């Protein structure tokens, strides 16, 4: 990508660096167990804007491996899974606009995907990426976390976060949304990609500016800066160019579409990378 791309993202980093994190943790007894203590976390990101996260720490002597979960596309993110809370110091990021970080800005679904999309500087994902970077900084700063064993898991945001922040040992990406979004939206009328079609039908003159904006957020342009070991899960070979662009070692997992089988394979891969025990979610109660 161009020098403008690097300058754009360097500006985001610089803007974020000027805003104190002002981390605030509050224990959540309802979400805590004998095995792990869970907290709500408030962090300030660019804007300034106060974002949210669920942070859970195993009740074992530190250090423990860390895991950053980037937010899904939708208004709600679950509390990290019980099995993950037993193994990792795990942070689920909730970006601005999502529930628990929706004051003063509440994201619309559909709507978020095209908010401010006519320019990279105004596109909502600029701030959403900053929210994820701030969360990464928080997790990597925690004394209870073994910083040699930190992973990041999610969609495009996981790959972009790993590109912008060193310190992740493993990256696992799936369900990409922003990668080749213009192309995928042409092949689909399903939301959220259809949001882009709606926008371009109403604003046909914006096609080029939208394409230019999305180029800043397509993970393929961030991939060369990712030097962590990366697992890309895919249904077919369409993500091979993305995998090839990643700067570090990569592996791929081709989905079987048997959700439990796929989950267990990916869980095992990540656990091995981070020195944790693989866990299946489908077990008899202990």
């Amino acid at each position: 990508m161009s020098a403008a791309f690097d300058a754009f993202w360097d500006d985001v980093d610089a803007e974020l660096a000027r805003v104190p994190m002002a981390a605030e943790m509050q224990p959540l007894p309802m979400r805590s167990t004998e095995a792990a203590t869970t907290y709500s976390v408030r962090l300030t990101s660019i804007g300034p804007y106060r974002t949210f996260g669920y942070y859970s720490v195993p009740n074992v002597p530190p250090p423990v491996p860390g895991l950053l979960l980037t937010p899904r596309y939708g208004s709600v993110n679950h509390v990290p899974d019980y099995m993950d809370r037993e193994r990792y110091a795990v942070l689920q990021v909730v970006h601005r606009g999502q529930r628990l970080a929706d004051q003063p800005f509440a994201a619309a679904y559909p709507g978020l995907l095209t908010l401010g999309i006519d320019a990279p500087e105004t596109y909502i994902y600029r701030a959403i990426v900053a929210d994820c970077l701030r969360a990464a900084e928080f997790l990597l700063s925690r004394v209870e976390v073994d910083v040699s064993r930190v992973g990041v898991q999610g969609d495009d945001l996981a790959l972009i976060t790993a590109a912008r922040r060193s310190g992740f040992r493993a990256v696992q990406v799936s369900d990409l949304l922003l990668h080749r979004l213009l192309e995928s939206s042409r092949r689909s009328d399903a939301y959220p990609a259809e949001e882009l079609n709606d926008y371009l039908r109403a604003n046909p003159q914006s096609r080029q500016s939208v394409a230019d904006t999305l180029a800043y957020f397509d993970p393929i342009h961030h991939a060369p800066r990712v030097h962590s070991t990366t697992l890309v899960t895919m249904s077919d070979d369409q993500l091979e160019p993305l995998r090839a662009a990643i700067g570090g070692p990569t592996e791929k997992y081709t989905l079987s579409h048997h959700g439990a089988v796929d989950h267990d394979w990916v869980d095992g891969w990540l656990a091995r990378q981070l020195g944790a025990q693989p866990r299946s979610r489908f077990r008899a109660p202990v």
Partner: protein
Amino acid sequence: MTQLRNPAAHHPTSTVRPPDFDAFWAEIMATAERIPLNPAIEPLAWRSTEAVDVFEIGYDSLDGVRIAGWYCVPRQIQPPYPGLLLVPGYISEPTLPKSWAKQGYAAVGVAPRGKLRSNRQYNPGYPGLLVDSIVDRNTYAYRGFYVDATRAVDFLLSRPEVDPTRIGVHGSSQGGALTLTTAALRADAITCGAAGAPYLCGFMDAAGLTHSYPYEEINEYLRLYPDREQAVRETLNYFDGINFAPLIRCPMQINLGLRDDVCPPETGFAMYDALTCPKVLHTYEGCAHDAGSYWEAAHVDAFLAQHLQPAAALVRA
């Protein structure tokens, strides 16, 4: 040492059908019936296409809560259309059902109370909804939530372009639960239902079989308030899909993932056993909460088309 399970062969349930279950719901539905629907429909031109008109809709429901939804209607097919209600999952936003309208349905994607755009008067949050007022059946979150879905059927019936003799309902997870409850509470109006990985069946059994959300909310609640377990059980029996199942009269298609950690398949089997209507079950080895959706989607399309006969299906035939 944990043991893997055999849910098809072993799926006992602790769900009990309260003697006044039918009376409880008859009273709620009678109360709802007295509330004017006050439907509103606003064209959403910029989300409409050559093939589909899109509308934002609203209507009134129990407790005076205003419910939002999306409504999509075919443009290139002549009415009347079969109506199709799409009901959302626990953390999902309601579907904007353009793809269904392209198949010939007048389709509603509803946002029951607490979902975005229906949360001005009631907003328990996520997590939160599952345990909101869980010790009191008369104010439990799903009392209004279930009714909100049934009122979407009334919305469809209020539309002149909809054939009132062909109304289907479909969803997965919480959408699967709402498919069951809507087919049960509006047995007079529903032609068929397709429910994937149904949630809200065998609540307490499910919570005992998993640590995955949303059922983990019940485990968390009872860890803090163990003395309330009996009250929780008593409430949930009034909202359990297993207890709604015998009220359903239309054909139903169910799909389950045999390794579903979110909605344990044991509870889906127990619900399926309780169905007395014409029914079909598809199970998927190795599948979790996806419940075989990669393969099941085509079965759902065919099942709904068979019973609802959208014009696109007639053309294909």
